[in-house]
């Protein structure tokens, strides 16, 4: 018995070491991006590479923020505007739809569910050209609305399928009790069921935002004025110009990733929950 305990102890220590090594390997690229952003151009090419910037400098950031080529503050603002409204649009449309799919007997419900599932699997490229033409016809090409609508099509199916499982987990008796107390279906939904599913609602907010913020191809295709570009398009356009100015490219990358890392720190629980709920992003 004692030897079994000891073996288990050794096994635990060994597992912790393996875990630590794997963790370092997985996180190293991100670490490298951030540390490189604090190096000057010469140290980037230092051999052997400096695992830690010996003389950290914020020069690369200063150059990014004062660059005449792309106004990064404007870019961040554009990103936030596009992601915020795409998020609101997808959540506002998804919550009632998910409730409808969870609570009502609808004709063709299976088919509707199938449509939402299929729309998650489509390649973005399949709707890229048609929407490019449609947006020009309804004259929202080159406005924020174009990527907002396109990004919402990513969030909506995810949110509906995810929220539906939350709503299904609330017993029907709870709705019925609310109805007996005199609520109509909308009231019983907003006052009783929805608060019980606040976790799911948080997940749908976070992910609709994430989808929109991460998007490159929609904004790249539907917006041609650089003053309206989100940061993802900004950084894509910048890399060509950098050549090998890697500390600047990494500084830009860190700036683009920072809002998501901050969001992750505060919303970690919901992000893990949303990823666990399955089918996310491509």
């Amino acid at each position, binding site marked *: 018995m004692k030897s079994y305990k000891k073996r288990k102890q050794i096994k635990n220590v060994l*597992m912790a070491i*393996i*875990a*630590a090594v*794997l*963790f370092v390997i*997985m*996180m190293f*690229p*991100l670490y490298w991006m951030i540390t490189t952003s604090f190096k000057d151009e010469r140290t980037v*090419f230092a051999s*052997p590479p400096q695992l830690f910037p010996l003389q950290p400098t914020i020069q690369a950031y200063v150059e990014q923020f004062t660059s005449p080529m792309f106004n990064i503050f404007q870019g961040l603002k554009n990103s936030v505007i596009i992601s915020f409204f795409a998020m609101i649009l997808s959540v506002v449309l998804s919550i*009632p*739809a998910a409730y409808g799919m969870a609570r*009502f*007997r*609808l004709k063709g419900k299976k088919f*509707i*569910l*199938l*449509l939402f*599932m*299929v729309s998650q*699997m*489509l*390649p*973005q*490229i*399949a*709707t*890229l*050209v*048609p*929407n490019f*033409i*449609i947006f020009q*016809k309804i004259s929202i090409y080159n406005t924020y609305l174009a990527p907002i*609508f396109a990004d*919402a*099509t990513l969030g*909506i199916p995810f949110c509906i399928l995810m929220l539906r499982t939350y709503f299904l987990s609330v017993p029907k008796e709870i709705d019925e009790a609310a109805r007996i107390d005199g609520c109509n*279906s909308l009231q019983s939904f907003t006052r009783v069921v929805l608060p019980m599913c606040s976790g799911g609602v948080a997940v749908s907010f976070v992910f609709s935002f994430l989808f929109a913020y*991460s998007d*490159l*191809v929609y904004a790249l295709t539907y917006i041609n004025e650089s003053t309206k570009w989100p940061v*993802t398009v900004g*950084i894509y356009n910048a*890399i060509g110009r950098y050549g*090998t100015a*890697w500390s600047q*490219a*990494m500084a830009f*990358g860190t700036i*683009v990733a920072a809002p*998501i890392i901050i969001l*992750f720190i505060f919303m970690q629980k919901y*992000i*893990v929950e949303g*990823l666990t709920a*399955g089918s996310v992003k491509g």
Partner: protein
Amino acid sequence: MKRLLHKWEGYIYVLPALIFMFVFIFYPIIYNLILSLQDVTVTTLLSPDKDFVGLKNYIDVLKQKEFWNALFLNCVFTVACIFFQFIGGFALAMVFKKETSFFRVTKALMLIPYIIPVTVNAILWKFFFATNGGFINEVLVGLGVIETGVEWLQHPWTAMFSVIVANIWCGIPFFMILLSTGLANIPMDFYESARIDGATSLQQFIYITVPSVKASIQASLVLGIVYTFRAFELIYVMTGGGPVNGTELLTLYSYKNSFTKFDFSVGATISNILMLILLIVGVFYIRMMKDDEEM
């Protein structure tokens, strides 16, 4: 009467989202099908009458060597990525199975590579594979494996290798998280009693772990294949499909036809072929979901 109203109400909840998706997803898909049957280039794009050419575009595309090259690269990319992502994700899920705070926090942090924008990942890996100053070359030269740096992104096959490595890194957390939910649901007494019966760790893995997470394995593989097969942004930013079409997957091939050559009909044709392939894979997924829950 009351029942009827009840039914009606349900549609009011669902319709707004459904209409939105029809306008911006399903109508465009139909539009794309029509485009692929027409001959639409930049000059005829906004004109009202376009010539229908039947299946000519499909026949033309299937005759192009470039198309088969793209399809082949798509398969290489997907198989290599899924193979290593699955193994890596499974290994991480097993190692980080414990519920102590150290394991929980580190496991959560490892999701960051997956949730940051793909564009950032692409630039980060472009730097890793840079000929001068790139980490991979620095290490290989430093260790004496090679004498001078490899031009990773300047040759077709090394470029393919680079985008595969980058994509594996971004995708491992996806597999890890899906598989670890499956692992968390296995009751510990299964292992307990297997140990008492004298089962080795390997036997426990094969006869308890794998069968118990079968559903998670299936779901992660099918979704992973779909997401990898339609990869676009990572490669577009890292290599743009080059060098010499070396990383030109179907998505990039379609994008190039639409937005570089402005041959919208050919672009639409390629994306429809890609969509068809994805839908075939998707049918498996939907079947699995049906087994899981009654729809």
